[in-house]
């Protein structure tokens, strides 16, 4: 597969490490009342869609960017590649 890195252009998937669902960005609030339940869901529950999937890839053999790649799990078509940091900021991670 080829991942169109937002900073470096098209790169072979072999340069990347795959982590999984981009929901891992949404780390729960540790002080919330239901923090234990939320962290359990965060740690163990994942969607496994047949189709569009937002997932985290790490450009370990490159610039060390974490990317959020929107990939169709049936066709491997990649429709969007973003810097995970930008995604995290848009999702309201404020620290």
């Amino acid at each position: 597969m080829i991942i169109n890195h937002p900073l470096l252009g098209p790169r072979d998937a072999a340069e990347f490490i795959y982590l999984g669902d981009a929901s891992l960005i949404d780390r729960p609030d540790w002080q919330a009342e239901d923090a234990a339940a939320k962290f359990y869901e965060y740690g163990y529950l994942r969607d496994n869609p047949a189709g569009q999937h937002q997932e985290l890839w790490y450009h370990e053999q490159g610039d060390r960017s974490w990317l959020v790649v929107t990939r169709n799990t049936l066709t491997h078509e990649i429709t969007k590649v973003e810097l995970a940091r930008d995604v995290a900021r848009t999702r309201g991670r404020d620290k």
Partner: protein
Amino acid sequence: MSQINRVKGGLIDRSTPMNFTFNGKSMQGFAGDTLASALLANGQRLVGRSFKYHRPRGIFSAGSEEPNALVQLRSGAHQEPNTRATVAELFDGLTATSQNHRGSLEFDLMALTDYASPFLSAGFYYKTFMWPKALWEKFYEPVIRSSAGLGRLSMDEDPDIYDKGFLHCDLLVIGAGPSGISAALAAGRSGARVILADEDFAPGGRLNAETLEVDGMSGADWATQALAELAAMDNVQIMTRTTIYGSYDHGVYGALERCTDHLASSNGKPRQILWRIYSKRAVLAAGSTERPIAFGNNDRPGVMLAGAVRTYVNRFGATPGQQVAVFTNNDDGWRTAADLAAKGVNVTAIIDSRDKPAVCDVPGARHIRNAAVRDTAGRKGLKSVTLTDDQIIDCDCLAVSGGWNPNVHLTCHQRGRPEWRDDISAFVPGGTLPVGMAVAGAANGALTLGAALAEGRAIANQQIKDLGFTASRKAAPKAEDEAFECSPMWHVGESIKRAWLDLQNDVTVKDVKLSHREGFRSVELLKRYTTLGMATDQGKTANIPALAVMAECTGKTIPETGTTIFRPPYTPVPLGALGGRARGHDFRPTRLTPSHEWAKANGASFVTVGNWMRAEWYTRPGEKGWRDSVDREALNTRTNVGICDVTTLGKIDVQGKDAAEFLNKVYSNAFAKLAVGKVRYGLMLREDGICYDDGTTARMSENHFVMTTTTANAVLVFRRLEFARQCLWPNMDVHLISTTDGWAQFAVAGPKSRDLLRKIVDEDTDLSNEGFPFMGCAEVTVCGGTPARLFRISFSGELAFEIAVPARFGNSMMEVLNKAGEEFGAAPYGTEALGVMRIEKGHVTANELNGQTTAQNIGLGMMVSQKKECIGNVLSQRPEMVGDDLRLMGFRPVDHSLDVIAGSHFITKGDEANMANDQGWMTSTAWSPNLGHSIGLGFIKRGNERIGEVVRAVSPVHGKEMEVEIVSAHFIDPEGERLRG
């Protein structure tokens, strides 16, 4: 034997003879021959034995689809089994032997299995050998094993070199036949970067095998001219002897280039190169493969595909027989007859299954309409065929044509599913093709020359226009469209004898019918039950006729029956090529520590730790075994001073205004308030609360920290920190860089370490206990100005320092430290002594941080702060984890003469040794030279409350057990006075 079957013409170079041997027999061919064409020229019809029944077999095809003519090429370590003679290019000195027989090829003892064929039908493995059970291991399995397989490996290491490479292009053209060349010409003329790849050594595809004309010249001449034009274009790369074997995501293709397979010796060059081709667009012009018709005894040497017979005569000037009959269900078969007659080969009869007038005039040949072959005679070579009307026709070669199947394979490597086209009675590409791929020519069902040439150009132009190129205006090459009308016939129903569908796996029509009767009706089940379409040819000539027979059985149509899924590779790819240069020592990179050279010169023995080579101990004269060295090193470190290269530990530079706050989040214990010039031990958890890694982190200045990780997790921790920095806390001002390779670091440990360092560290640094206390750190200079970092940390439990210098000074530093330390009795120590001393101190490593244990388990529960946000602290409070009472403890044998055994499980005295009574396990053991007996670390339930208790340590694996006493994990200096001294 001379070349009795040579006929005039062909693309061989008769001025360059080539000598070769087959089964030890000397023969001669010419440059431009394949092994198969040279064998046929020499009249060698019998070339091998079939897989299951050991039936005599000959050459069946003229290309990579060959199911029969598999031979062993070359000899010694270069021996290569299962080589298709039809694609093996002849070279002077080639040696080939036949395979899969016991005794000679002519008198194969295993041919007896043919008489047992009634018992060896499809699925016989599942039905036979069931009982008596006792016979399985002693008899059935050895017999089956020894008779399985085709060729034999040399069992020597492969002496050849294989390489890998990467290529990029705008348009990849797969196949250099008429449509492929036409496509490459169109794209090349537009200026696009083109790669034209073909598996053959002579590009041209069927143009080389036919007598058809293009633009008023012979097809082969036109191909030569077109390739010359392409070769002159800077933007076109022609790759011959290169098979595109797989289509992968996003326009990536796998290619195997056979660089020196056609030479007697590689001369140190790579034998094959595995290419990864990145294409923006691709044109699949893979052509088509002829399919046979099944009839009784259709596997005899001499029964061949009609198109192949034509290829041998036209391209190689070698006729497979002197008296040839043609059996066809389509117009194309007639061209074989015509071409043979034109070369002066005696064509005895044309047997056409259709009731149709002669397609063309073939002098001397009888035309038998509305008939079929139902049986053949001639055990080791065809002698005659019997028709459905019982007439017998003498012939030594039967050319069979059942129509042509487009080579759709690469269109199916992702999601494509072929579609049936009634007008050509064949599957054509269908469904979703790989991204960027379009199909042209015969592969797309355009089975005639004029159409293929036009389609190649049109498809290529369309592809390059998509990329923004302007198509050249030059017209497509012109050729006539030959007749190809086909009336499908898959097998001759009147055959009484076995009729082969898959020659390579000995699958007959009867087997398919049996499979149907027994319920294995889906094509995927049919394949696995009968082995249809398996092995080197992947059923290229077998699959479609077999599924047509299945369709007949089920009463469904062929498209309803469907095909099995084609997967890469298209043709076999040697494991050597897939491995490339990554084999043996080069399988993975080797990382050497900065002091490697010094260690090597000073008696070090090395151990592989991940990719690292670390000194495990340094042997001194007179030491009889490793234990002598390790005991000495450990004792010396605790008495004098020891020096150990600890560079392999991960080092991560953490800088930025929020660096302290960041560390506070990734470590479970507090880091925010660590003072400048201080080091702290840190524990990292996984998000699920399990221990992940540990190490020390030093605060060099307000916004600059140096973190260390374990050797094994150096890369993983760095990855994780980047995740935390970019994804979890994206607004923090933190920057990370791995400096593991940048700094050489040495542990200098022992009561005399300070004395030693005073000689190394420049005078302006105060090394006194007050000036440089335990857990202090500083940037210093050594040896008169060399920059260094000094940390007062201790893994051994002694007064100790770690000193880091830029990696290029590492080897010298090791030398300087040892020389300066001579007066203090300094000695280097390796990983074994390091391990002994850490066990003596109860320090954990991967044996204890094994991905299943918690901070509480290792006695560091207090280090998981609940007062701050950090990775893992929330889930570490789950009741199941909090309630887990396993604790890390020390263990010593009650009988000091015994060695404790790692992996032993603890059982309370008086209890039976079983899982229910399991109290924990021993994680690490060592012989302590300081205590004079064996010691161990381990986890045991409620360990902290059981000090002094004696339990059983049971190792059923070793069949041993002993009594051990539970003690503190800190065997030496439990108060830590030494390291603070």
